[in-house]
Structures are given as C-alpha cells and as structure tokens.
C-alpha cells in the first residue's frame, strides 16, 4: 500500500505507519521545497511525529515547552513574519488550552498557521478522558476564518497536509493516534478541500462520515449489502468546514435517508453541520446523528471504545438498520429504483 508523501515522490508503506508519522514525513518533504515551512510543538515532538520533520530539518522545528498558549501565540507571531508554521500538539490541548490564542491570535488575524492536532476523538482511549477530544469540531467550526479537516487515514493525511498550503489562512487538521487501519489503497484519487469523496455508491441510505468513520462505514456498507440487502452510499466528508452542501443535498435527494457518523460529540460536530444543510434547504429525508452522545467518553483501548460507542462496522450497521425502519415518502427527486 503505497503513499506518496511529497514532492520527491518517495513512497512509504502506509499500513505500517501512523497518520502522524506520515504527517511528519510529508512535511519534511514539503519543507525541502518550501522555505517558509517551520514546525512548532509543546513538548510533543515525538508524540505528534514532528521528530520525522526535525530529523531532516533540525533548525526548523521549535519546541516551546509544555506551554500551549505560547505555542499558538508564537505560531501567530512567526506567521506574521512571512513563515508558514505547522503547530502540533494533542487535539484537546490545542482546542481548549490554546483555544483563545487560536481564535484571537491566529484566526482573527487570518494568519496562515496550520494546526495539525493529533490523538483526537477517543483514539487515545487508555490515556483517560482528560486526553480524549470530542469537542474540537464544535470549537473549531465556530471560529471564523478557520478551515476544519478530518482525514480518513494516513494517505489522506498526506494529501491534506499538502493541500492546506493552498488555503490563505488557518487550517485545523484533526488526526487520531494513528494505529487505525488505512481506508485508501493508494493515493490515486481526487482530493480537494471542501469537496466530499464518495467511497461507495448505494440507493437506500447515505452515511456521511469522516476520520475513522470512513473505513468502518465502508465495511458496514459491505456487510449490509451482503446480509441485509441494504444498499448504502458512504460519503467521506473530510472537510467539516466549509461543508460540501452540494454533496449533502445530493445525498438527501438520492437516498432519502442520511446517517452521520463521527468520533465526536453529536453536539456541534459533523452531524450538526449536515443537519443545518438539510434544514436550510428544506430537504425531506430521514436523518440521524451517530457519535458520542453528549457524554464524557469512558476509558479503554481505542478499539474497545469504538466497539462500545458503536463506531465500528458492526455498530454502524446497527445504526443503519434502525434508520431504515423509518419510512420515507417517495417523490419525483428520489432516484431509488
């Protein structure tokens, strides 16, 4: 499984590397060509895999110590001198400990700081709930000027890290701890920020998801097709903001049923972003949000938590079956056969 990580077309095996490791390596490749790129971290150079960057560019990686306010304030300052800083720490520290600096110093001033936040969602399950982060979409998408992206795996992380250089302003990229299996077999697909990717087609229901939900939903769709005869479309909504409204409108018209799946509180996240588009466009469809149901997540290894919260393929398939019980009225827009 090859992933193209940068401008010199070096390949790595994405199935043996975490998304954050691919991030660090991709950034190292990019920085060979683009002298504006620097990296900052708050004593998490190893954990965020920026050590893959600093190994190549030791003079371009700055550790500010355990000090997230200073991390994001400093990133704003460096951006103001013409650099493009990539600032990395755990998602929970980024969006809550450094949240005001991200809002006021970076987003308000529209500075090109790229925040690559790792260990998001419940991916660091055994670290305990202090280190879970199921609030970041809600926080980041409500900050003006901010682009919010959640790649599905390492391959997509590599594409996102490169694509966010084209955004004139700040970007928040959320990745997990990174031991999740990859969903993409190779880099041979079109990736565009703000444009959702259809992973598989179907006619009964659309799952709109992101991050780890993408692979699990694709697997759920296979199971549902084989065992239940339910035809499920899966849409990878990697960009939470700006949301791809056209893809949502298309899904509502085509399948009349939408399930959102996210490793995030169902309050304020992907589900709410999709719901807004449905409501504001007066779309008639059955709709459910699936994710962490407004609670502090429990402790455990990530795989166990995905199962507990029904964010694995089996759990998602159950949620699809529930939503299929809701009858939807036919109309002229419905493309169901």
């Amino acid at each position: 499984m090859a992933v193209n990580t940068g401008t010199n077309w070096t390949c790595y095996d994405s199935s043996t590397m975490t998304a954050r490791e691919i991030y660090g390596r991709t950034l190292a490749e990019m920085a060979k060509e683009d002298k504006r790129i620097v990296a900052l971290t708050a004593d998490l150079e190893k954990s965020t895999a920026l050590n893959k960057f600093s190994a190549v560019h030791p003079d371009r990686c700055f550790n500010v110590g355990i000090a997230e306010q200073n991390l994001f304030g400093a990133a704003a300052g460096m951006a103001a001198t013409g650099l493009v800083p990539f600032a990395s720490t755990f998602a929970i520290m980024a969006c809550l400990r450094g949240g005001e600096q991200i809002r006021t110093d970076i987003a308000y001033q529209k500075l090109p700081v790229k925040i690559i936040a790792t260990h998001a969602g419940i991916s660091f399950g055994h670290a305990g709930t202090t280190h879970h982060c199921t609030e970041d979409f809600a926080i980041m998408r409500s900050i003006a000027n901010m682009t919010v992206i959640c790649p599905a795996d390492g391959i997509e992380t590599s594409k996102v890290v490169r694509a966010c250089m084209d955004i004139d302003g700040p970007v928040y990229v959320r990745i997990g701890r990174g031991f999740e299996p990859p969903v993409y077999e190779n880099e041979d697909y079109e990736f565009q920020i703000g444009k959702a990717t259809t992973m598989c087609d179907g006619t009964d229901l659309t799952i709109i998801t992101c991050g780890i939900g993408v692979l699990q939903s694709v697997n759920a769709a296979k199971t549902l097709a084989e065992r239940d005869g339910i035809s499920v479309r899966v849409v990878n909504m990697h960009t939470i903001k700006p949301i791809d409204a056209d893809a949502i409108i298309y899904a509502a018209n085509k399948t009349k049923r939408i399930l959102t799946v996210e490793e995030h509180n169902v309050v304020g996240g992907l589900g709410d972003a999709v719901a807004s588009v449905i409501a504001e466009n007066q779309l008639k469809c059955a709709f459910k949000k699936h994710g962490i149901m407004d609670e502090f997540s429990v402790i455990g290894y990530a795989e166990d938590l995905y199962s507990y919260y029904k964010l694995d393929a089996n759990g998602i398939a159950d949620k699809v079956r529930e939503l299929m019980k809701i009858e939807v009225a036919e109309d002229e827009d419905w493309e169901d056969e």
Partner: protein
Amino acid sequence: MAIDTSKLKELKQTAKDLRLTVIDVMKWSGGAHVGGSLSCMDIMTALYFNYLKVDPKNPQWEGRDRFILSKGHCAAGYIPVLAKKGYFPEEELKSFNHFGSPFAMHPDKNKVVGCDASAGSLGHGLPIAFGMGLGFKFQNMDNKVVVLTGDGELQEGSNWEAFMAINHYKLTNVITIVDRNGCQIDGTTEQVMALEPLNEKLAAFGFDVIEIDGNDMQQVCDALDKAWAKKEGDKPALILAKTIKGKGVDFMENQVPYHYCSGDTEVCEKAKASIMNMEV
C-alpha cells in the same frame, strides 16, 4: 547614542500633545482606558518618534520593526500615536468606537493601518512577540520586535511561558517593556495579586532588567538605547518602566477608578488644563 537636548524636548512636547489627544478620544469615543493610556505615552512616543524603523507610507514594509501593544485596552493611547506618525489623518480619530470605525477599545491589525497585532485579551502579546522574534532570527532578518505589556497583565500565565521562551531562544531582537503603573481594575496590583519582587522575578527568568522611571523621557531613551544595542549572546532586554497611571492629569494620577473613564465635557476640560501645565 545619547539623545540630544532638542530631540528630547521635541519628544516631550509630542507626548504632551498626544496626551491631549487621548482626552479628545475619550470624549469622542464616549469613554476610554485613560489611566493606562497616559502612563505609557512617553514610552510609545519615544518608540514611534525616535526608535522604531517604520514607514507610514509603506505600512506593510517587510523591513519594519514591529510593535505590539499587549495592553490592548490602551488603544486610546496607541491609535493617536499612529495617527500622529502619519498612518491616517488625525481627523479620523473622531470615529473612535462608532459604528463602522476601524478604531475601538482594543486595536485590530486588519483594520488599523500600522498596527502589527490585534490585542486586547491580556497575556497574548508576549507569545506573539516571541514568535515574531523567532521568525526574524530564523530568517536572518534584523527587524526588532517591541512588546509593551501592562503590569496587572503579568498575572496571566501565558506571559511567563513567553518569558521562558524568549530567554531559552536568547532572542535579543525582542524588547519587552512592562508599564509598571501599579494599578488594575479592581485595585493596586499588590492588593489584587501581588507581583513583587517583580524585578528579581524577571531577572531570574534571564532578562537584563532595566528599571527606569517610565515617565522620564531621558530615562526612557537611555533604556531604549541599551535595549537596541543588545546583540547575539547578550541577555534579552526587559525595561521595567515605573510609571504613574493617569500621568499628566493631576486628579487621575495613581487613582484606580481612572483605569477607565467616560469623561463628560467638564472632566475633559479639567484634564486638558492639567496636561497643559506639564513641563517640557
């Protein structure tokens, strides 16, 4: 390079004129953080009219020095300085705080020409200044970064994160100035959350602390000369400027309630009369 007598007199006169404008802004805007704007006026005047390498005709010039007013609530003092420097007509100050104005209680870098950092939430200026200093050093650029903080503001922990970092990275291109006027909204700093012994604390973080009377233009210039002369290998400079909150308006001086004032015409007239009596 010691400052000559005529330049000194000119700076003092400019600071006095600007203090009068602060009172006008207080009237036009319906209220302003007048105490802190007056306490740091001598420092901002010296910076903009004798030290900072800036070009009002080319506000985004890459080679410019940067100034961050971390005590952003004192925009009523800072924005008149930018107007007098020539970034925009002084006449525009009359719009202060009004609908659609670029000028408000706290400065916005994307609206105020010449402003390098939006500020107002306290404890943000130093980390930004640290990042700028690091960015300039990394790119071998010789721009200076000057950050002016309040003293009450130092109760925010983020400042101390930046103090550590400025010294860890030995950033002599960053010049920190603390406006030590001793007052904050709810009382004196020592009543609300004691900062002393501040000089020793800052020195312990690694700074060359230059303690001065921040309302004495000669001392301000001497301190800035020292700070500007810092080079690779020196300790970063921090000017601990002891000032008087409300400086120049006799009935406001060292008076906690004048942190903010929505002065009516009578108060403004009295304040201006007092400033007119300042010696230059």
